[in-house]
């Protein structure tokens, strides 16, 4: 059995089905990307996996059914990073990161000195060590997201659910945050499911891509093994006609780049 499996998930809102009969498996140390146009059901799928909305079907992590876990048990094995954190009070970065220890603390317990040290180390890893005592609200969106990543790091979860974590970030932070996730997944022997809008980034960082169309899986692709033609046709089925090319950067590393037909047309003018 796979490390993490999603079995026949169906979910929606107000009686309307948004995702229908979704099943897939993920091995440990792997990142699975979910691509799809707006309204295709990406966020709904993540919320159903996290048991945040009513749904049919089950998710198993290491043979544990996530639907049967209480909030605290779920938080011990699964971390969720939303597009933007809902924290909107004056609070230090250190306290935000220490929230990640909640699942390991009793109701009235406070984070220990050791936990605070771990939190500081996590902040240093994401480059915010110097700002540990600063107000979270005064950070840029990118820095806020990095702080939330640090919070996820201290929770040592086996399953990372990431809902467009890079949507508010510039190109530098986008790649930095995805590299951090890659390291976390390797170090913790975990797996990650990430929804993304940018197919180029997805092809670069994900081991497997699930293409979601109208609430169902249209195709799955594995960038490292599938042929360019196969991937191009799968992506074209999702976004309209696109071209997929392989190119080398200045350091000689290979990259897959998706060229949109509209962009080509604009370039020709």
């Amino acid at each position, binding site marked *: 059995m796979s490390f993490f499996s999603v079995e026949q998930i169906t979910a929606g809102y107000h009686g309307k089905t948004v995702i229908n009969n979704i099943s897939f498996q993920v091995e440990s140390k792997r990142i699975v990307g979910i691509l799809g146009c707006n309204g295709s059901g990406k966020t709904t799928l993540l919320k159903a996996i996290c048991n945040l909305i009513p749904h049919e079907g089950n998710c198993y992590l290491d043979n544990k059914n996530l639907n049967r876990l209480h909030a605290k048990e779920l*938080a011990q094995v699964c971390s*969720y990073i939303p597009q933007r954190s809902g924290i909107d009070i004056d609070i230090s970065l250190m306290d935000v990161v220490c*929230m990640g220890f909640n699942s390991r603390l009793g109701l009235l317990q406070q984070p220990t000195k050791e936990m605070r040290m771990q939190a500081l180390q996590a902040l240093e890893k994401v480059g915010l060590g110097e700002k540990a*005592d600063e107000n979270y609200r005064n950070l840029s969106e990118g820095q806020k997201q990095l702080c939330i990543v640090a919070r996820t790091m201290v929770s040592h979860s086996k399953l990372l659910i990431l809902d467009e974590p890079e949507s508010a970030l510039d190109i530098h932070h986008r790649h930095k945050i995805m590299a951090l996730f890659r390291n976390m997944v390797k170090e913790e022997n975990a797996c990650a499911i990430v929804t993304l809008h940018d197919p180029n980034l997805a092809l670069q960082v994900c081991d497997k891509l699930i293409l979601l169309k109208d609430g169902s899986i249209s195709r799955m692709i594995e960038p490292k093994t599938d042929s360019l033609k196969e991937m191009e046709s799968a992506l074209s089925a999702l976004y309209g006609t696109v071209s997929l090319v392989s190119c080398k950067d200045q350091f000689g590393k290979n990259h897959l780049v998706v060229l949109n037909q509209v962009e080509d047309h604009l370039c020709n003018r």
Partner: protein
Amino acid sequence: MKHSTDLLTKHKSEYFTCIITGVILLALVICSLFIGKYPLTLQGILQDEGMQRNVFWTLRFSRTIMAVWGGLCLGITGFTYQTIFRNPLSSPDIIGVSSGASAGAAAGILFLGSSLAVTLSAFFGAFCAVAVALMLASLDRTGKNSSIVLSGIAVHALAQTVLMSLKLVADPEKELASIEYWMMGGLNNISLYNMKIPAVLCIISMCVLFLLHRQIILLSADSAEAKMLGVDVRKMQLLILLVSTLAVACTISLTGLISFIGLLAPHIARLITKNNQKTTMVLSGLMGAVILSFADILARSVASTELPISIFTSLIGAPFLICLVIKRSHVR
């Protein structure tokens, strides 16, 4: 190393602010004990002069204690409501506590009469209003904050209807005036006898809120995020709201409605500490106690007759609220 030094300096300044506020409160307490229509002297009280001792213990001491405890309670619960509802304008009234207490007090004044019965009736009204609001909110399974706020608005409207109906049938000379006066708030009917049980309940509630501070902060994230951090959002919200309501109901059932303190005190505390840590929670309570003690001193000393306390809390609170709105619009 730099981090721990900065943190230490920051914590030291927060504790220092709490101590300064505590000293101001102590000064106000001493003033409150000796300011009033009947002049008291320390010598007179210590020398066992019957009248002075009597006035001190039955009037001044109890109302001073009430002002400190009431302010602490409104400040701490105001901090709690504003944090868990993620709304800087939240106060205990958001889920109908005050309107429920008013309707309960009006019913007590009309049908029961004695001041103890009015206190109990106001407490019962406040608790019923919150129980109905939380019950209505629990019908919405999404667990969103907005469902509690909407239920609170509905209960507030319902309680106002009950209050208006009771006012209509009240005798305009006596009962209607008593209802209006109760709603303006005041500490003139406080005695050590009727504040014992509410004081114990209120102190226990405030200790529980203090211990649950970390959970209150976790609830300031949105409900999905809080759940994924391991918080049983609905149960924790219910627990914190019930404990806060108990504290507020214990206070306003004795004092009548006291406006703005629950809103004002946490904002002043946050302006000073610029965070939401435990020290800010304590400072919110201390600020509430300072404002209520000061307002009470003014209420019984600026005119020949005692004035309702809410006049002074509103006089301080309204300009502050306007400043807050202007400041927020500048930030945007």
